């Protein structure tokens, strides 16, 4: 299960839906794998604005991967720079050059989000404590009926 996916997972228990503590889920006893997926900046740029950076930082720290993560979402940083009064000209130029974000940064993020996966372990809700097992990379999110 890619870290991309875990950055969007929340506790399925009904009473947790409105609780901020149910996101992100916390890894316990996780073992990781590294796979290789051809870099695709279009997809990465599509998905980046949706990622909750604070949550991703928490996850990365739990897995000992903080070094792979920039301190802020590079897309936010880019937007901020553009808003900070640089003329329309500059933005247009940036676009013609590509993403406007350092490719090295993007590649690191690609490795973290797309190529790093959890094979075995548990995802634990910070609100209710429910543990979702992960086996062979497959997350088990079946709930006992009384928690639905």
């Amino acid at each position, binding site marked *: 299960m890619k870290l991309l996916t875990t950055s*969007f997972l929340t506790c*399925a228990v009904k009473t947790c839906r409105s609780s901020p503590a149910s996101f992100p889920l916390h890894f316990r006893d996780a073992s990781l794998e590294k796979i290789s*997926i051809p870099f695709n900046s279009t997809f990465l740029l599509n998905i980046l604005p949706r990622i909750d950076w604070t949550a991703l930082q928490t996850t990365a720290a739990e897995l000992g991967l903080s070094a792979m993560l920039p301190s802020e979402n590079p897309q936010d940083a880019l937007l901020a720079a553009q808003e900070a009064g640089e003329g329309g000209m500059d933005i247009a130029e940036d676009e013609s050059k590509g993403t406007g974000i350092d490719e090295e940064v993007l590649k690191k993020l690609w490795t973290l989000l797309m190529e790093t996966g959890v094979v075995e372990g548990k995802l634990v809700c910070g609100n209710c404590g429910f543990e979702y097992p992960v086996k062979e990379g497959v997350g088990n999110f079946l709930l006992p009926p009384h928690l639905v």
Partner: protein
Amino acid sequence: MSRPEDTLPPDLYYNDTTSRQYTRNTRIRQIQADMTDRALELLDLQQPSFILDLGCGSGLSGEILDKAGHTWVGMDISPSMLDVALQRQQQRFEAEDETEDVDVDEDNDNEDDDEDDEDVAMNGHTNGSNAPSGGGGDLFLADMGQGLPFRPGTFDAAISISAIQWLCNVDSTDISNTAEMRLRRFFDTLYSGLKRNSRAVCQFYPKNDVQKSMITKAAIRAGFGAGLLEDDEGTKNAKTYLVLSVGGGDISSAVAGMEGVDVEDGRQIREAMKSGKHKRGKSGGMVVEGSKKWIMEKKEKMRGKGKVVKGDSKYTGRKRRVAF
């Protein structure tokens, strides 16, 4: 022929043997692939996207999503189906180095072979090894009737092929787990899990018009704009697609110009539900004004009056998948 949905709950019906037979069956694979292509066409995605596949089974759709350059997350309630999906992913992964077509069926126990059970290269229906490739898929063992565990605005799109009719089963006497409640949890969380201005396409096999309307109305109640598309209507190959839109409210653009589509504007229908302005269909099910059935009945009436109405048409000339 009895519907599998009427025999067993899905996780028991799709056991190891059935899941393997299902996935090895050439004819089934072709049909599921065609429907996935059709769903992709209706989604009309403009860039590599993050897609949720509900009732993903053994990943037949996922392989097509991946070839089209997308990244997906699949959920299924059957461990056996997911097991087959994992095995196929593994084989695919291993085959990537070889650049040759993959023979998926290397299972040597022939006790469950049947006529359709030919070996077919997994790449059979695409243009080969230089096909674009997305970010692959992640699998979840989960019951979509319990609600989906994703943050608001997670996915660019969702698809579901031949699965959501299973939510209508009565597989328990539990009054807190009726078909209505499963549908409500499913559509409510699907709605919130999708980005604004996105779409979901669910091909499903409704048992009857009542079930079709129950499903459509659950989607509309959750906030979706909804349209029903029928391919090969009236034949034994009829396929029903529930086309849903989030935000923008209007599905007309998704299905504009397509034949055989009746448009249901969610807002209008929700209004109608609130004000109790709905009509009763012939078969007794409640039919909301603007729904497919209501339109069909209106057409019949108009025919009766000798007016010319557009025929209930069949979909032809399908376009193949887009690549990035």
